């Protein structure tokens, strides 16, 4: 459960079956396929490691995957230091398909605006993946991965 007031909240309605959307959201290792700016997302023993397109990474602890409530909860644990973070993605029934609500709470709040805009992009990406099979711009399949971000053409 989120512990404080939500700092960031976005939602999207996807014209697809709830279970189809939840199947993607519930698989934490697939987040990079729909979250623009993530190259990869790998889950090992409840810890998710995300490589970002900017060349950094995020460590996250998956707190709960509740298939009954269709709710996925996690927290960022590093390498940046946040005094507090919780993220929650909930997939709800909607008359037009599935309503996906993405919420985060964080302290300090320097990243509020960054995360607000990013999860807006991410929900668009989730819709594109579910409806059209389109993966996000930054995702690199395992077989195509190198050690870091592309560095072509630089002086």
């Amino acid at each position, binding site marked *: 459960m989120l512990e404080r007031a939500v700092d960031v909240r976005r939602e999207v309605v996807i014209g697809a079956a709830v279970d189809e959307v939840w199947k993607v959201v519930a698989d934490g290792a697939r987040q990079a396929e729909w979250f*623009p700016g993530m190259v990869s997302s790998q889950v090992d023993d409840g810890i998710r490691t995300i490589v970002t*397109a*900017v060349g950094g990474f995020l460590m996250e602890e998956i707190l709960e995957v509740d298939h009954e409530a269709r709710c996925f909860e996690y927290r960022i644990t590093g390498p940046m230091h946040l005094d507090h973070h919780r993220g929650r993605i909930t997939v709800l029934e909607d008359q037009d398909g599935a309503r996906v609500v993405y919420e985060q709470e964080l302290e300090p709040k*320097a*990243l509020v605006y960054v995360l607000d805009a*990013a999860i807006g992009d991410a929900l668009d990406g989730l819709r594109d993946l579910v409806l059209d099979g389109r993966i996000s711009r930054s995702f690199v399949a395992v077989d195509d991965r190198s050690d870091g971000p592309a560095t*072509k053409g*630089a*002086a």
Partner: protein
Amino acid sequence: MGRGILFVTTDQQRYDALGCNGGAIARTPVIDGLAAAGIRYERAHPQNVVCMPSRATMLTGQHVRNHGVWMNGVPLPAESATVAGLLHDAGWRTSLFGKAHFEPLLDPFLRFPENRMGVTGDTDDGKPHRGFEHMEFAAHGSGGPTHYGGWLRRNQPDHMGSFFPALGIDLEVNSEGGGESGAPQVRHNPVPREVYHTDWVADRAISWLGGLDLDDDWFCWLSFPDPHHPWDPPASELHRVPWRDLDLPEGYPVLQAEREAAIDAKAAHWRHWYDGTLVTNFEAPPRWVPATLTTDQVREVNAMAHIQNELIDEALGRVLAVLDADGRGNGTDVVFTTDHGEFQGDHGFLFKGPFHVDSLMRLPLVWRPAPSRAVQPSVVSEPVGLLDLAPTFCRIAGLPVPEWMDGEPLPMSPADAGAQGRQRVLTEWDSVHPGGAEVHLQTITRHALVCTRYEPGTCHDGTEGELWDLDEDPLQLVNLWDDPTRRSLRDDLVGDLVDALPERPRTPLGLEAPV
């Protein structure tokens, strides 16, 4: 031989950084020489005192309310018309080297094209970006998605960690101190001078200029990230300005009581920031308390900034020497300025924020017209703004100034300024902070009078203001806002301000990052 416009900007540089403006510390013979041969402006103001809104004004020639970038973290809309686009469409070759900051820098998910270009090393976005056919970015150090960071990682990987990290591990502006005085954002940087970003910016511009045909018309924005904090110039250069030898700046009241009385004469948020009880914006370290600033720290920060100023002057000199050597210098206009100023100890502060005083608003601005035009050197004291730059570039290129630009070409003499009816320049600030603070300022500068009104926010009820008479009080210590003998003057200035400012947009652009 083609025509050229070399647009040179620094970041967060004070008016008195230059010898030609009376600065007595940094040696800036190159810029001083441009001023002696051209036009030096004594009262040039930005339309906003932080990077993104100010840079958007430079690129568009518009007031903040018209380009919409009301605060750092608001990206300039991709479809915004720019002077670089006009020049490109007119057949000019266009480039930018160094700090752009038309889009947020804090972008971990690479949402913005400039940052994606910085990571991939691409020099365009598949097409000219904002009118620039070639862009190579640098920011304040090795971090962040920039071409400079990638170049440093490949060529000097051992120095990736040499720079002061502008942001802390919590992604807030780093409050740590360093150097010999413990001043915030100061570090003795072991990076060799030749790989420091100032010289890299000049090197990349020289390379691009060398690839042009001599008959090409070109516009090159040479955008040095310094002397913006962090103050971490190469340690090899520290001998240039020994900080212990510096006098304290004239604008720093040494006596605590005097300093605090002057702060208390200003609007309430000055004192709140000084005491460390208020953070209004992302431009200064949130855990640094200005009241703790020591005289040694003021000296050391000043020394570091002036070293950075000298390096910029020398790097610019290298670019100009290349143009002179191949004959293009004679047909090149050079415009030098900055996006906003820096306290550097004035009033007891460092950094910047919602404070409309000369430290942050009075900018260096020099225009050296192409020598082939034989323009008479001049000094203009009438108020001008950064919104006048884009129209000036149009005028130099022989293009009509489009109606969407709010500025007009810079005057080339006092007589020219008189003919243009130059009376005022406007500066505004709007900010919201995730911590809750909301601040709104609007300022009119009319010759020696500077008048700021505060709209209601979390710190102000809308009745506060500041009125300075720079002829009587150049250090801005005596606030005349509540002086009954100046009431009619204040009302006249506020009325003029309200009449001259454009309307706010009905729907403000979204804030997408803190910076």
